[in-house]
């Protein structure tokens, strides 16, 4: 989330909110009245429909935010896990959540923040190879497969599992911190775990002396 976000007063105009968004390069603004959160405006609330006459845009620019904001927005506590926030965004089809603690508004969480979390969870931010495998959905399978990788001296950056392609299976996506993924895939396959990834086990590293 963004701590201590920029806020606007309810009587501020649409034009003022637009310029605050442009300056700060963001798309969501909490509306705060005397320290209390009363609404949220998103960039889309501040636009007229494409093709509207120019007068409509001018008229909108001068209106107060109370007329366009979403009043009584859905909020979230600062100590909630990220999946709770994600579910709120999905269930309510909204793009941001003001983060509210006892003392009032402390931050704002947007879709972009969740993308950053997703990127971190899937390991897309670090140099790595992507390996996928399918495991039987039984206790211990994941552990055994990961031991195979660890025994090769390859570090795992992220491991994500989800329901697999067949009932009774789990799909796993690994981000392995190696440029040479083929031996990892080969070892997994040899241990009975169907896996795929880039490259092929071949002649890399055969001594040539």
């Amino acid at each position, binding site marked *: 989330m963004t701590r201590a976000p920029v806020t606007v007063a309810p009587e501020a105009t649409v034009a003022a909110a637009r310029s605050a968004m442009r300056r700060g390069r963001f798309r969501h603004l909490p509306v705060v009245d005397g320290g209390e959160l009363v609404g949220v405006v998103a960039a889309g609330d501040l636009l007229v429909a494409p093709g509207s006459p120019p007068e409509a845009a001018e008229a909108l620019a001068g209106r107060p935010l109370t007329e366009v904001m979403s009043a009584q927005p859905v909020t979230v506590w600062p100590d909630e896990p990220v999946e709770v926030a994600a579910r709120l965004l999905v269930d309510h089809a*909204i793009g941001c959540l003001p983060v509210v603690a006892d003392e009032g508004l402390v931050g704002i969480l947007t879709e972009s923040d969740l993308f950053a979390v997703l990127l971190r969870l899937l390991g897309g931010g670090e140099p790595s190879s992507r390996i996928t495998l399918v495991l039987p959905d039984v206790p211990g399978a994941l552990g055994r497969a990961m031991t195979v990788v660890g025994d090769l001296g390859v570090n795992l950056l992220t491991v994500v599992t989800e329901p697999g392609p067949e009932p009774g299976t789990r799909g796993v996506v690994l981000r392995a911190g190696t440029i040479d*993924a083929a031996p990892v895939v080969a070892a997994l396959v040899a241990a009975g775990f169907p896996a795929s990834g880039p*490259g092929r086990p071949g002649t890399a590293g055969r001594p040539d*002396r």
Partner: protein
Amino acid sequence: MSGSCALAADDRLAAYDFGPGHPFQAGRLQAGLSLLRAAKVLDDGDLLAFGPAADADLELVHDRDYLAALARFSVPGAAAAAPVEAARFGLTGDNRPFPGMDRAARLVAGATVAALDAVAAGERHHVFAPVAGLHHAQRRRAVGFCLVNDVAVAIARCTRAWPLRVLYVDLDAHHGDGVQAAFYDDPRVCTVSLHETGRYLFPGTGEVHELGRPPGTGRSVNLPLEPRTGDDGFLAAFDAVVEPLAAAFRPDLLVTQNGCDGHADDPLSDLALSLRGHRDLARRLHRLAHRHCRGRWVATGGGGYDLDRVVPRAWALLWSELSGRRLPARVPAAWLATRPERARGAGWVERRRRGGAGPERPEVEERNRRTVRAVRRLALPPSVRVVYPLATRGGGSGRLPGWEPRAGRLKAPGGPLVLRDRCPASLLRRLEVDPGIHAFVRAAVQEREVLARIAEEPAGEVAVAHTPEGVVVAYVAVLEPEPGTRFASLPGLLEVGAIEVASGWRRGGVAAALLRFAVEPDPFEDLILIASGLAWHWDLDQSGLRATSYRRVLRRVFEAAGFESLHTDEPEIAYHPANLFVARVGARVPPARRTAFTSRLVRGHHPMP
């Protein structure tokens, strides 16, 4: 020419060795050098002198505490004693420390530094540094067998010492992430990486939209290609982007990373290239160096892990191309006999190019075509795309009906000018071009050819302003939008593909006057004209303006000619706030066509607020 080439490698580099069983080991160097010697294409006089890179150079790219860690963990046993600390600097797994690695890494960087110094100073035309091109190393981390980023170090040193613009072309199967990161905001260093897509392959980056950061936006270019692309697809992508990019960027020095791990036999990737493909790429780079960089070229060896059959041959082919030394007809039998694994026929290259994919081929080709189109649109100014076309343009749907060529007069602050429209190619080839017109190509002669080629396009229209002596100081080019772009399929729509005023003639109202003149003829009232300006294509160096001020200037010029600035979510325009999109809808354009155009401006898939 051969006397002016050099090889920046000797047996000392065998110290860069992660040990037996590791893909990056001393055997690479020995296999490669032994083949060059056996083929009698290497003399001792070819070897460039070099020493370990100095701290001052390495610190241009790496943090001091990382360099200290490299030294500390070079001592046997040090990493085992502090494994977590070593891992923090990436010194584990792929990059397991070995005794003396600090000095070995400094030698690799020293070779590349010496290579760039020699070429930049004009002492050598071309230098090949085979054990170099460690393109993954980060500021404070070893990555993917790369302990120091020798290429970034050498380029950083060179661009600091000389006023040079460097074009870095990375052909390794893996994205050149470390070099890209080192110059991500630097407009003097243009990095272009062709690699297997990072969807699965290490390091996972190198997407089309990694374009750089201001003021270097547009100077990081990435071509992520599909697994099983094959030679033809790879070469097509290279041709569609690298040569025109060089024409647009006007480099002074070419640095290449010629990793051969894209080869079909290489265990680390799936690009399915052949040695024939690698040889063809080397030829193209050589030609590019002479066409655009006055011959200044440093090639580095990069990755490649089939040590018996591929790497030595790939190095020999590259060295032969670069040095002009002819390889014998066959790979020397004595060299082949040393290890049976080296044989793959006695030829240097395969009999034919690799086609790449089997049954999935149409899909691979289509995806690569899409990637190439997107990259061209993002990285190449419109006029350069015209001169280096991907394919012939559409069926002339926006063809202009004829009108008599006109001439006008303009009293500009710099002197009287003649305005002309409907310029045929033959006329343009006879006019001179002011050397102050140079946004896109280095020599004014080439710029004249750009204009002539636009005039030869099916719907191409060129209007110029020239002095009474016949020197072109400004031009406006109108043409059909490039196929596959958002507005291309609309009937009766053309694009103002380029507008430029010579640097000595700017700020005198020439652009506005010429544009007004160019769109005055009556047939334009039946057409929609669009124009877009991507901030990083603009001639900011020359104009001394910031992107936003430049946008204002450009917008005023277009508005004076009846264009209107419009909002669009066309991704390349929307990508940057300083980009500009304008259109002029002719008075007789029927309402239905007008609506079809405006409905295409915003496709709108904005998430709910």
